[in-house]
């Protein structure tokens, strides 16, 4: 491993690794959103990636989440080099190994909390009763065991983001990627979501949380700073 931060304990513990990742959007003039990013995450880590608006955070998350391919460089997720995977395989990889949390929650408005979470397993081919069982458990885990039957639109912002977190967790992914998960929340709800993420990480779930909020990022066990498409600094795993 030639990454700039402390090497993981063993190769098999690396759930995500980016090497020399560059992303250029083919606009005129072309935008280089990422410029040679080296970044890796080991199992059980909670990493905050912080950077100002336009620094390439969302682009980074999309590439980590295999929603987009890099212009150059190598991306490995859960042991799979995405260069070797077809578009269909990437869908399978996302279905089984990656959880997402978005700033806009992205819940289906007409659906209940339970169905929204169960949809986290929709494309795994699991049968519906198992999906609902797991969704029930995931909602209980994020403290919404009493809100199972509530339609998404009837929930508060904080509750919606909890539902989204539960949906990301429900398939026991190798890694959960969160893009500005507190971006649409007030301070109180924001704190609560950060606290929820810490708690779930304590239970062993690997997290990368992207935020423009330095305070939130620096409170995590590891913080990386992004500026102009480059990792400006990476604290590595702090030993608390």
């Amino acid at each position, binding site marked *: 491993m030639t990454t700039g931060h402390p090497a993981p304990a063993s190769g098999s513990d690396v759930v995500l690794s980016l090497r020399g990742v560059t992303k250029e959007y083919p606009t005129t003039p072309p935008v280089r959103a990422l410029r040679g990013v080296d970044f890796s995450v080991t199992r059980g880590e909670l990493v905050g990636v912080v950077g100002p608006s336009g620094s390439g955070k969302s682009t980074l998350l999309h590439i980590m989440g295999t929603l987009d391919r890099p212009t150059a460089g190598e991306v490995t997720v859960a042991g*799979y080099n995405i260069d070797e*995977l*077809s578009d269909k395989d990437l869908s399978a990889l996302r279905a089984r190994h990656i959880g997402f949390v978005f700033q806009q929650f*992205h819940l289906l408005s007409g659906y209940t909390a339970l169905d929204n979470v169960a949809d986290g397993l929709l*494309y795994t081919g699991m049968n519906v009763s198992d999906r609902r069982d797991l969704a029930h458990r995931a909602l209980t885990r994020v403290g919404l065991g009493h809100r199972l039957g509530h339609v998404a639109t009837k929930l508060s912002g904080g509750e919606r983001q909890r539902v989204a977190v539960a*949906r990301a967790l429900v398939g026991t992914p190798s890694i959960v990627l969160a893009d500005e998960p507190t971006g649409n929340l007030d301070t109180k709800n924001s704190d609560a979501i950060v606290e929820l993420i810490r708690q779930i990480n304590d239970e062993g779930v690997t997290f990368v949380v992207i935020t423009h909020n330095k305070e939130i990022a620096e409170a995590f066990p590891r913080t990386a700073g992004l500026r102009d498409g480059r990792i400006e600094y990476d604290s590595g795993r702090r030993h608390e």
Partner: protein
Amino acid sequence: MAASNTTRGAVMSNGNGLEPSRLHSADAFRTASVGLQTRKLRAALSALGIMIGIAAMVGVLGLSESSKSDLLAQLDRLGTNLLTVQAGSGIGIGSGELPVEAAGMISRIGPVEQTSTISSVDVNVYKSDYVPEGQTGGITVQAVDVNLLETLAGSMADGKFLDPATATYPTAVLGSVAAERLAIHAVTGTQQIWLGGQWFTVIGVLDEFELNPDLDRAALIGLTTAEDFLDHEVVPSSVLVRANPDFIDEVTSVLSATANPQNPEEVEVARPSDALEAKEAADDAFTALFLGLGAVALLVGGVGIANVMVISVLERRSEIGLRRALGATKRHVAVQFLGEALLLSAVGGIGGIILGWAVTGVYANVKGWSVLIPPIAIGGGMAAALLIGAIAGLYPAVRAARMSPTEALRSA
């Protein structure tokens, strides 16, 4: 894995140990119905075009089928083997009369099973002798054979038809229109009409003659009565002929010459059932026209669905992005939107079939027909709706599938 003869994709899926994304068909159906559930009004409106188109087609085919079956039943009841032999009338074509012996000669043609003579009597009919002359109400007087009712497959509304006994007395049977004009609805046996300057007792009122509507405006009296009481010389104005159905053409070809050997060109031979069939053929032209209109409505409905689907795909970009993030393949997304278009058109199709059926049912009921929806109209209507839905949904579905997940997610 030694799966050297499988396709590359399969090798990779097997080789890399990654279980592919999968969507159960029940779940595919559910994702396809999300749009319909969350935007019910829009879904209903966009299905309306298809519904109207299918309703028009099912209704038109149903009505045409129902009326056809009614006609067949009618022809079956009335028979298609009736021929009328009539003296040509008008300037230069004869006297309006057939030779006295016409009926006798016609009945000697082999396949002729029955003949019935009608002789016009040139007198007027009034409700009573007070009614001023000239106010005849357009009622004619016809002297007829007692077998006329049977020959024309007619029926009585009330009372009795002429029989060998009453056909020798001053008794009359009224056609349906004549009875109405004389204000005689029920036969009491004591009602009398002023016919040719004498009182005639009304013994019966007829239903409409489907094969000879002219007689509806007539008062019918016996041939003997006409001779004895009105001094009428019985010269046939027309002869009704029932012939063996297998030899209709042969009989038709010799009728003129047989009825009037001297002047066969003055004889008109007609087959009344032809007129009923001709009416039906005219209806067929309307059926084709309405089918065409239905097809246009379907097409417009298809454009409506395509339009709604394109909008739906644009509006639901973030949902598409989310589904791709959750592991949906391009195919899953395409299936979802194609499925939505198919559901919309299926809803329109089913609604259209029900509506078309209802319209046919109501109309047929009014007409007294039995309701017949040809299975082809239902199957074909549904197939047409789904085909239109598939075509309308194809482009939006492909567009949704091709959308880059990151673009889709950024749009929210």
